[in-house]
């Protein structure tokens, strides 16, 4: 009997040890904040890990921000706690300009997060890629597209170059490209009809598809503007 009390006590302590974390740990953040960076409802493609925005929450002893990265297709998502956040897209982020928020009349977007939220953020891109058509075969991939200049006032910027990238994986930009071809901004004769094509190199291991998309580098803007990623099978 004495022994079994010991065992029961031991078992009880073990149970406490295994279950008590429920009590002294915080819940993980559960509210999903997601959306897209858009221009007139249309997502803006960017390169991976390059464009991000910051969420700031006031009221803490020290200041720090939560960085939210924007995916290649212009989408973003983040799991957060409920709270009053301020959303800021830092200057010089992305191939676009910020639209001042109506409420704060600055680049700060107030975000009162009480439940999961799906919100698109409107921005003003320098250009938009239109009518992108990418097709190809085992030897070459070609793209035809048009460029529409969105910002035409004193903030307008010229095109530095337009580039067609091929990649083995679904991450497509200059870092991962296995083949590319470009046309300088000055060489573009007709913005409504631009053609680019590039050869498909040998790939190891062999694969019978590539991913492709078109990127546009704008003068004086670090981040490039991209079209959606196309998978080209052959």
């Amino acid at each position, binding site marked *: 009997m004495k022994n079994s009390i010991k065992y029961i006590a031991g078992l009880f302590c073990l149970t406490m040890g295994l279950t008590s974390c429920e009590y002294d740990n915080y819940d993980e953040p559960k509210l999903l904040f997601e959306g897209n960076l858009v221009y007139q409802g249309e997502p803006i493609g960017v390169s991976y890990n390059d464009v991000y925005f910051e969420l700031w929450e006031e009221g803490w002893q*020290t*200041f*720090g921000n939560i960085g939210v990265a924007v995916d290649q297709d212009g989408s973003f998502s983040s799991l957060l706690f409920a709270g009053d956040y301020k959303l800021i897209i830092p200057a*010089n982020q992305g191939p676009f300009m910020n639209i001042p928020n109506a409420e704060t009349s600055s680049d700060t977007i107030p975000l009162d997060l009480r439940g999961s939220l799906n919100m698109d953020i409107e921005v003003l891109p320098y250009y938009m890629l239109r009518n992108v058509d990418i097709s190809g075969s085992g030897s070459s991939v070609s793209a035809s597209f048009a460029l529409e200049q969105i910002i035409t006032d004193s903030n307008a910027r010229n095109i530095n170059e337009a580039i067609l990238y091929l990649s083995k994986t679904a991450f497509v930009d*200059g*870092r991962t*490209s296995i083949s590319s071809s470009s046309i300088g901004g000055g060489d573009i004769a007709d913005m409504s009809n631009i053609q680019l094509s590039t050869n498909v190199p040998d790939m190891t291991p062999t694969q019978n598809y590539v991913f492709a998309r078109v990127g546009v580098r704008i003068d*004086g803007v*670090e981040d490039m503007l991209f079209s959606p990623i196309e998978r080209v099978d052959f």
Partner: protein
Amino acid sequence: MKKYIYSIFTCVILFTACNDEDFLNRDPQNILLEDQVWENEDLVLSVLADLYNRLPDYQTIERWWEFANFDETFASNAGDYWRHQNVDYGYGDWGMWDYGYIRDINLFIEKAEVADQLDPEVRSQFIAEAKFIRAMVYFEHVKRMGGVPLILESLEYDYSGDPTYLQYPRAQEHEVYDYIIQEMEDIKGDLPNGGTRSRATIGAALALESRAALYAGSIANYGQLTPNVSLPGGEVGIPADMADQYYTTSLRASEELMGLGTYGLYQNDPDPSENYTNIFLNKSANNEVILAKDFLVQGRTHGFTIENIPRSLREENTVGGKMNPSLNLVQSFELLDNTFAPLPTEDADGNPIYYDDQLDIFAGRDPRLAGTVILPGSTFRGSEVDIWAGWKTPEGNVITSDQLGGRAELPNGSTDQVVGYDGPIDNLEWSAQGGFYLRKYVDTSVGSGQRGTGSAVWWIRFRYAEILLNASEAAFELGDNTKAAEYMNQVRRRAGFPTDLAPSEIDFDRIVHERKVELSFENHILWDYKRWRLAHRVWNGESVDLTNEPGDALAVSTRVFGLKPFKVYDPGSPNHEKWIFEEFKPTPVFNPHRFRLGNYYSFIGDNVRNANPLIVRNPNQ
């Protein structure tokens, strides 16, 4: 009764013991008090020595791995492969915010100024030296962070509960450079002319002024290429119209240093490659060195030679051969006729070129190549290094081994050595995985490769050849090509070039190239590429092959390449046992480097900005 006696006795002890002033007031035996320090020259010097010792360097022989961050060398050490596998440099990389150090220097200066027990002349030299160190530290900050708060006196908190009066905003970038230049002008009169290479001298002050003004000038000049890299308050970015003024200051400081007559180019050895190596190894008869961090002072040594000595020659059974200079760097050493060319591995039809001797492929190149890099087939410490990747048959079959100096069966049935004792073998760390070893700084004295002794080779911070190149660049930017050529040719003649460059041949690419090869592995590449705003264009994140234009300053160079020598296996043919070479990318290198605009000025920590809201963030991060 006993109780009372004890009580009285205790009271007596308690009340009388404290009267003994001498007993309780004793001088500490384990620390020196401030007054004691400041009345003794030797003690002040040891405080100053501590300040010297804390001078920061980004790349140095005590931190070899930082050299592998760019395209100069491959890191043949498994723990450092990631340097070739990460794409982006972090925004916080090479950042710095060391106001604890600056405060210590400020306190030193303030105390020295009131130390009346010291000889006035010695005291003013101490103050000048501390001001030199402080300017060096601010220079280190400004080139990494842009403008930082200029705190030139010690700050004290008054415990009032409101520390806001201690919050200072960032100075403009050019204000920090102006401070460094002005400070050097002010103190140089109090410093000795020569006599030491590990403490501040007139030469060191002028060298710092020359370098700082050149940096400021090029940021003003080339900063126009990156208008995004600036802040509205001027904390980052220097107005373009200030460029000429800084270039003029730099040129004047360089010429003043040359006029001292204390320093000159090292030309003690008849063989130019040997001579170039010895600039870094010879500590006795060497008037090229202006300021260095010396070793073997009180037995202090470092392990650079242990880490980087060729594998087959190592003195300890531990590591070795960690730095493998890249083919990118090797091929940028030009030919003796002042032209550029990649290493000739194939003829025009794509067939391999056969060489009788391994060194033949490097023949006719800048002698500084063999002074910087241990080439396959060359000797080090009197022994030949054994770098070759295997036998290659005419059909393209490679016979090799995964063991250094491994043996295997050749097609004719005999067993023979099939790979060098130094590699290259893919993924085998601590050997010449890239096909080369580093020669610069690797000590030739026996014992320097042992843990117990270590190497005493010093770390040179300023040397005369850099001053000549600073002067050449400043003169070129000011439009004086004749002068630019004159200064650059001094360096090139010493290097062993028979033909001078004509003034018309000096252009931006030449300036970039000359610094790249003369000052490789000397903690210049990052700062140079930053101030020229080349970093984001040369390390642009694109996976491109090795350039065929080694003299082009804008050639993209994001991954390090290597060179594999093969022995030809073709019995009966005249090519049998001749050498062919193949360019290759070491297996651990799989991602290109990308330098983003936000890397030009490092991230200022959130803790800093939390403590002081006046600090503005750096751009593009």
